[in-house]
Each structure stands twice: as C-alpha cells, then as structure tokens.
C-alpha cells in the first residue's frame, strides 16, 4: 500500500493504492493527512472512530474524507494510522490513531476545503486497487 500526490492545476490530487480495496482506503486516509501536515510529526496519542455510508466505493471515499476534513476543522484531529474495523455493504467504519494538530509542532501543509468527485477514480489495476481523488484547496 502507498500513496503519492498528483499534479493538478490549482488544486491537489492524491493517488492511493493497496492490495485490497480496504488497504487502498487506508492509504487514502493516511495520504490525506499527509497533505495537511507531515505524517512523521504526528504521534499516536488518541484515536477517533468514524463510520460512513455510501452507495458506491467512490461515494464512500469522498464522503469519508469529507467527514475527516470536518473533524480536522472542528476537533483539530490529525491522523497517522487508520485501521479499518468494518467494511462492506456500502459501509465503512474506521479507527484512526493520531493527535490534536498544534501549529507549533506540526508543519502547515495544505488547507483542504473538500474532497471532490472531480476526476475521481476507484479501480482494480492488475493485482492492486487504486484510487485517485482531487481536493479543492
């Protein structure tokens, strides 16, 4: 599993992959926090549990990441290590280990306004699942 940023004019994209769809979701979640700050600077001091429902893997991905953006902006939570607790039937439940964002300790990366459907891809490529998502910044 892994992720990388993708060049998009004016915004920022993320390509995330894993051996399974679940793994790809984990990569995407970690990758998104990596856009907000440096993952290496985050300690696992607490965890949050988030559930989301969607009628497609794409909808699930966009909805979940928007929920995590919301939690970042309202609770200052930045995550480092996501664990998928439940997955399937249009539902994902994830526990994310991380801590509260503090400007003194965590480098300021990108301010993500939202995860979007723009150029969104969730697909099986050979033996791995890959997703591409663009954030409005």
């Amino acid at each position, binding site marked *: 599993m892994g992720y990388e*940023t993708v*060049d*998009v*004019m*004016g915004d*920022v994209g993320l390509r995330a992959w894993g051996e399974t769809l679940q793994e790809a979701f984990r990569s995407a979640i970690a990758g998104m926090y990596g856009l*907000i*700050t*440096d993952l290496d600077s985050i300690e696992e001091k607490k965890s949050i549990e988030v559930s989301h429902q969607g009628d497609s893997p794409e909808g699930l991905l966009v909805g979940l990441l*928007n929920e995590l953006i*919301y939690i*970042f*902006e*309202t609770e*200052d939570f930045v995550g480092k290590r996501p664990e998928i607790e439940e997955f399937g039937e249009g539902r994902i439940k994830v526990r994310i280990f991380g801590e509260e*964002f503090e*400007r003194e300790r*965590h*480098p*300021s*990366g*990108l*301010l993500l*306004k*939202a995860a*979007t*459907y*723009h150029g969104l891809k969730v697909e099986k490529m050979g033996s791995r699942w890959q997703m591409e998502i663009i954030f*409005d*910044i």
Partner: protein
Amino acid sequence: MAVEALRLRRLDANRVEVPKDYKSGMSVPGIIFVDEVLEKDLEQKSIDQVANVAMLPGIVGASLAMPDIHMGYGFAIGGVAAFRTDSGIISPGGVGYDINCGVRLLRSSLTREEVVPRLRDLVQVLYREIPSGVGSKGKLRLTRQEMERVCRRGAGWAVEAGMGEAADLERIESGGVIDGADPSLVSEKAYERGKSQLGSLGSGNHFLEIQYIDEIYDEDAARALGLFRNQVTVMIHTGSRGFGHQVCTDYLEVMEKAVRKYGISLPDRELACAPFQSPEARDYLAAMRAAANYAWANRQAIMHWTRESFIGVLGLAPNRLGMSLIYDVAHNVAKVEEHEIDGKKEELVVHRKGATRAFPPGHPELPQAYRKTGQPVLIPGDMGRASFVLLGSQSAMRQTFGSTCHGAGRVLSRHQAIRQARGRFIRRELEERGILVMSAGRETLAEEMSEAYKDISNVVDVVHNAGISRKVVRLRPMGVVKG
C-alpha cells in the same frame, strides 16, 4: 491541442468564440476573453468546461469566461453564466467551494515613505493579529444565535459588534449582505466549522497585503476614489472559510439527487444543478446567501483588526491614519439581477465563479459615492507583481452581465511551482525587491511565487481593452501575510 484550438473563432483582438457546434447540445456559444498571447495558455479542459456550461437549461446569451480562466469544478474558474429564473438552473459548481471569496481594499492617508521604516513591525503584528494558515481559528467564538445573525446580517453584524463603522457598509458590494439568507437551511456541520473560523484568513492564495500605488492610469477616477501616487493601501483576500466550503459540499449532494429527480441531462456530473424554481434551488440559494454574508462579516472583522494593528504600530490617531474602505467585491457568488436582454429587462441568476461584478456609472445598486464613477473593481495579483483597481462599465452590462476578471490565474500547478522554486530562496528574493512576506505554510511561498501565475497586467489589459472595465491604478506589494 492544436487541432482543437483551431475550432475556436477569434471575434476580435480580445475575444474568441467557442462556436455552438464545438460540442453537440450547446444552446448558446461560449465567449472567452483572451488576446492572442493569453489564448496560448488556454487549457483544453477549461475550453470544454465553457462549452459544457453552454448546454445547461435556460442559459442566456453565451457561456462566458474571463482571461484568468482555468479548469475548475464543473464550471471553469473565471466563468460567468446567466440563467433565466423561470426556465433556468442554479448550480453550486458555478459558485465554487469558497462562497463569496472576495477582495476588499482600504486606503490610508500614508505614503510609502512613511510606512517603509515600520513595515517589518506592521507585517509581524498583522501576522499575529489576523490568524492564517492550516488549522487556524479566529479570535471570535460565536454562539449559535450569533452565527445565525451573521448569516442574516453579514458585514452589518460585525459593525454592530463594534468592528467598523456603519459608513463601511455602503462601500461593500450589496451593502455587505444579501437578503434572503435562511440560517435554518445551513447544516449543523457548517455551523460547527464556521463558529471558530470567523475572522481568519485561511490559506492557499488568500492574503492580506500592504501595498502602495505606483501607477495611475486615470487621474480623475483615482481622485474620485481618493487614491493618489505612493499612497499606502491594504488589500484583504479571503472568503467564507469552512462555513462556505461545507455549504457547497452539502448542496452538491442535494443537487446530485435533484439532477435525477428532474431528469436534467448533464455533460459532466460536476455541473449538478436544480431548476431555479425548485425547492432544492431555493434552499441552496438561501444557504449560499448565508455563507456569502458570513464572508462579508469575515472580511469586515479582519479589516477592523487591520486598522487597529496600524493604529497600534504607528501610534497614529485614526483620523491621521485615514484608513477607510474603498470597496469590497465578491468573486464567487450567484446573484439574482436585472439585465437587459434584446431591449427587455429580465431577471436572471448570474453565476460568477472567479469573476467580479463590474457595474457601470449610474447603476441603481451602486452607493452615492460611486454613482458617477462606476463600481470599483479590485483585482488581486500574485505576491510579487501587482494588483489593480478598475471601474465597471456600461459595456460590461452589454457583454458580460456586468462582470470582469478576478485575478491572475495560475500557469503552474503547485508541484511545478515547488519544483521550480527548488534551490531558491523566495522570501529572500522578495525581500530584495522590498517585499516582506510572512507565511505559516511549509510550501506556500513556493506554491504562490509570481512565476506560478499569469502576469496580472496581461489579464487586466484584456478586460480594459475589451471595455468591460477600465484601469484606474496599479498597486505594488510591500508587506504580505499569507496562510
């Protein structure tokens, strides 16, 4: 690219047409305001987006784009589209995530020479007093009741709370408040995101900038606006923060369903919209107006702290400082306006996404102070080059539903910019040119360097030469606070 580009038809020195047969389903042509130089920067995808918008129900005249056009969510950034209120649509993608992102400009009585010795202190104090960057919070903590008042009253709320003066309100587009906002149509999530962010700048291309006037193009107009050579001004560029972003996110979902419900066929799902007369459209409009009003309260609060910072650092009385509002424009918004179509007055919903209203002299929506001059148009450039003040024109009413450009528009993606900035010291380069910059972001300075943007002068020349607004003064940056 070259083959497709041939399908554009040059109308005159400043406009190209995207003909109706460019894509099947277009009910009007597209018109992009570019000269031959900026035409070379046109991205295929943004031309396609102009064509896609021309397919939406009830579009009037043409799908328009300004010279700072680039690809956006569904609608191109730099796009202007007007729809009939009886048979047309409204679309959140035509407004953007940052509802009422906009610009305000303050004048002062100070000259550049008076400010330069204290510039470093000023920038540091402004950086401290006006929160910016990722995860930044404003100094205000609002109750739910106050938030609802912000939604209804906009900049007026901030003035009532002691931030600024009643006279400021006249010098804000729409008086700093759009009527018809309904706080009950805004989600709990938006309130949660918005309650701690009022009075913060945000990040990305948002900024607060101390500038001076280095070039005057129209002496009479400059005098009428209270502007003179070497005068220090302050420009504030920000929007509705997480509050508006959440409203957009929420209503894109509503619109996805509306598209299915009303059987609207779309060339791109990002153009999700609803018939203007539908309940979904009414709800979005009322929530969008609440977010627009939040943005005006935000810029009003930031302006207030800017004035206080200047008073504190320079130790001058407010009347000596003379810091008053020139104007405040929204450049991401949809508004119901009256326009003349084939000699008849019609009510239209005008989407401006990365485009600025540019109403002419005599327009009834303008305050007394600007009835003769026309509406001030504020165009921010990148942090190293320049910004501009222009005035609206009658020709804009005929050509662009009273609209003009909104900024420089990017030419490099953030990654390209970061790559090109490698091995350079952007902060130092700017400082050597007399521009002090403070920024919280780890890569903001590289992402936002001048080379990442089109030259704002070229963009402004096109709108000036096309007659949709006219140049008054040029502003040069001195001190910049970025997120």
